[in-house]
């Protein structure tokens, strides 16, 4: 929790983490730690999720029935909870992704001339 680390991390916008989780699960069901790793890896370590915040987000998604959870066995043969995208989660992902792209585009257009 040093100050330096806090500054380098890009804080995720509210709701963005949900989107990233859904996107990650599009590749197939997996467990919590793997989701965190995947987000970090795919963002080339720019997005450093405080891994703990993953869990409330996962449960929010379960509550909205966008993902489900089942018991499974991980790569090294350990029992773990596996999260899986549902059909409605998939629809949500499509909708959110296009929304996000619009937003990102708009922000980029606004910011460009100032640079």
């Amino acid at each position: 929790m040093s100050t330096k680390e806090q500054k380098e991390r890009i804080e995720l916008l509210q709701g963005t983490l949900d989107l990233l989780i859904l996107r990650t699960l599009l590749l197939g069901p997996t467990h919590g730690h793997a989701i965190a790793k995947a987000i970090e890896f795919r963002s080339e370590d720019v997005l450093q999720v405080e891994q703990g915040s993953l869990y409330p987000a996962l449960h929010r998604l379960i509550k909205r029935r966008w993902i489900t959870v089942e018991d499974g066995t991980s790569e090294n043969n350990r029992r773990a909870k596996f999260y899986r995208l549902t059909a409605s989660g998939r629809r949500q992902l499509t909708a959110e992704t296009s929304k996000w792209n619009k937003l990102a585009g708009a922000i980029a257009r606004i910011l460009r001339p100032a640079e």
Partner: protein
Amino acid sequence: MRRGKRMLENLEQEIRDHIERETHDNIERGLPPEEARYAAIRKFGNVTRVQEETRDVWTLVWLEQLVQDIRFGLRMLRKSPGFTTVAAGILALAIGASTAIFSAVYAVLLQPLPYANPQQLVVVFGANLKEGVKETGIPYLDFDELRAQNHVFSETAATAGHSLTLTGAGDPAEVKTEVVTPEYFSLLDVKPLLGRTFLSEDGRRGAAPVVILSENLWRDRLGADPRILGKSITLDKRPFAVVGVMPGTFRSPVFIEEPRDIWIPMVQDPLFGGLMTLRSRPGFGILARLRPGTPSAQAQAEMDAIAARLAKEWPAEDSGWTMGVVPLQRVIAGNVKTALLVLLGSVGTVLLIACVNIANLFLTRATTRAREMGIRVALGAGRNRIVRQLLTESVVLGLVGGTLGVFLAYGGVRELSSLLPSGFPRVQDIRIDGWVLGFALLLSVGAGVVFGVAPGFFAAGPDVQGSLKEGSGHTGKGGVQRRARNLLAVAEVALAMVLLVAAGLLIRSFATLTSVNPGFDADHLLKAEVSLPQFEYSTPQQWTAFSNELLTRIQAEPGMQNSAIAVPLPLADGPVNLGFEIEGNPVVRPGTSRTADYVAVSPGYFRVMQIPLLRGRLFSEQDEMPAPPAPRVTLISEALARLYFPNQDPIGKRMSFGFPPKGKSWREVVGIVGDVRDVSLHQEPGPMMYVPYAQAPFWGAVVVARTTLSTSSAANTIRQDVRSIDKDLPVTDIESMIDALSASVAQPRFGMFLLSLFGALALILAAAGIFGVISYSVSSRTREVGIRVALGAARGKILQLILSETAKLVLLGLAIGIGGALALGRFLGSLLFEVRPTDPLTFAGVAILLALVTLAAAYVPARRAMRVDPMVALRHE
């Protein structure tokens, strides 16, 4: 919820696995195991918080947190019993007082009247704006035409009140009687407890006399006889058949102050029955019920048309007179509305000051709890969460105070009801019910929010680093805090100033009112009323004989020589106001009238009352002969001489008047006596005319005696003398004139008493507030003071420093308070007697009092600062 429970199973295990995996990854990346684990945990974040937040997804978060906060709040309150007791005590007092006052406001101003469709009920008043007469009665014959001609009222009724003598049921007694036309009860739509109310037949001339009893009279004097219906009771020596009993909850809605014992049809009444063929004023109180859907404005328009017609038809009696329609509720609330609202405002101010005080306490505590808050923030509590928790704490305190307050209010309402002046409307409706409890709840929560906001605001953004570093728990935001605290102190002084000015004005007004000279000497003066049943004592000769006999017997008693008879007695009885003419002056123009209050007195009256004779002579024994043959004479008051005999000598002039108004006769003015305030102490003395009792007897008498005997032994003497003449005559209203005077100012006294009480509370709270602020300021500056002393500052200088700082706050508060009091003063105007709402003496006095008290409150902690030992102070913290 259940789904959530299943989902949350093994959450802890899952998190542990997660961290283990991360540790494993880190080791694979080449970190030593210890460091790998540490990095994994760091990356994961606060495990407890993650668990909590995950659980929160599945629970009704706010509810659970609320329960948690309430429990925590209660625990905090228990942990600091001193703080809790003081704060809850202050709150309980303020909320209790507010609730009690509100219960009266609710009963009188807000609660619908206890009759069916009360919004349809109106009063029709007579008024003559040219003569400045507002809201008086309507002559019976005019009422008759109003009733026949209008299209806006479904029912109308006339009413009047007086007393009759009840005999044959225990001791003879005066029973308070309401004399009504038969529609009265059906108009109000009230049901009897037993029997029936009046029928229109009961109102016909020649109908058998009937009476309706109040439940109280039926129980107290008639043993709650279940077969009372059809039996007779004797009123003024005439039998009346009982046809019904009204429940004890029924009260006459208007015109009549004290609850009635019986109701009789107007046509049967020995006094008012005779007025039913007259167009004489002041006439009767008129109640009416608007037809459904008829607006009051339409009724008013029709009354205007009827009044105009009457004035054309009867110019001598009705020219200049109009009729006004006023909703019943407004008539009932009318007299006391301003007083009640002022009281509510005052008690609200007390509550506000109490809140400011508690906010101050909370602020002080917030400072000492800054460390706790810092830790909470460091552990991940959000700003909103902390504000919410602090607000919950203060609201919990508010509710504790409110609950105690409601208990106090129960006592307060009982106390209030006994304090209320007689004639206060709807006293029986003043109680704590659902609405009042709702109000108390609102106050408690509102107060909690108000005094929770300030500390909540300051505590919410503590600078974490600062508060954790500062050892003793003082935050780095001392400046902001001190400003806030000073602001609260200023607010307190300002509010207290406003309230104390109001109290001061009422006290001064009351003192002025009670020091007014009524025109007679009330010391050692006693009065007693004897009423003669008119059916037995029916002729003026009988009345005179009785009065002469009574006065002779009373004057023969030791200590009672100085006695007289007067009807009506000034201030104790309502005045009888009569029109008069002066010989040689043009007859009074129709529609305007010369009127004066009329009193019939026995010759010794002016000596007994010590009303001075200014010119001419008093009544003599010769005037005690019935006239004729004796010449008719009158004495007039100074005001009458000044108003109607300007620049001339009234003595020897003749005036024509009489009571009842039909019996006019010419009388010679033989003398001028001093003015008397006969209507009320706060009304300038008006013109009065006196006649010898023997020349204008009444069917009863008020005995006044100047005696050194005690009230009770004098009363016994008078009772025995009355009984020795006629054992069936009741003697009532025996009291000293001082008490009668005091009763006549009961309402202003009531207002003054309560407002003074609230003012005193405000003063104490403001002083306590200043004490708290200065104490805190001193203790947080111990170090600074120590340094000053160590550097050679004189101790007197330290005292001066602190007191001058207080003075600045107090002066600012006083200035704001004076502004507020000036702005709000006009609301008091109608409650004040010969004192202006801007009275400089009151303002100055109150300002000085408040300044002295608050400076004294600051002096105690200031002295403590003065005695600070520099060595101890420098080691402080």
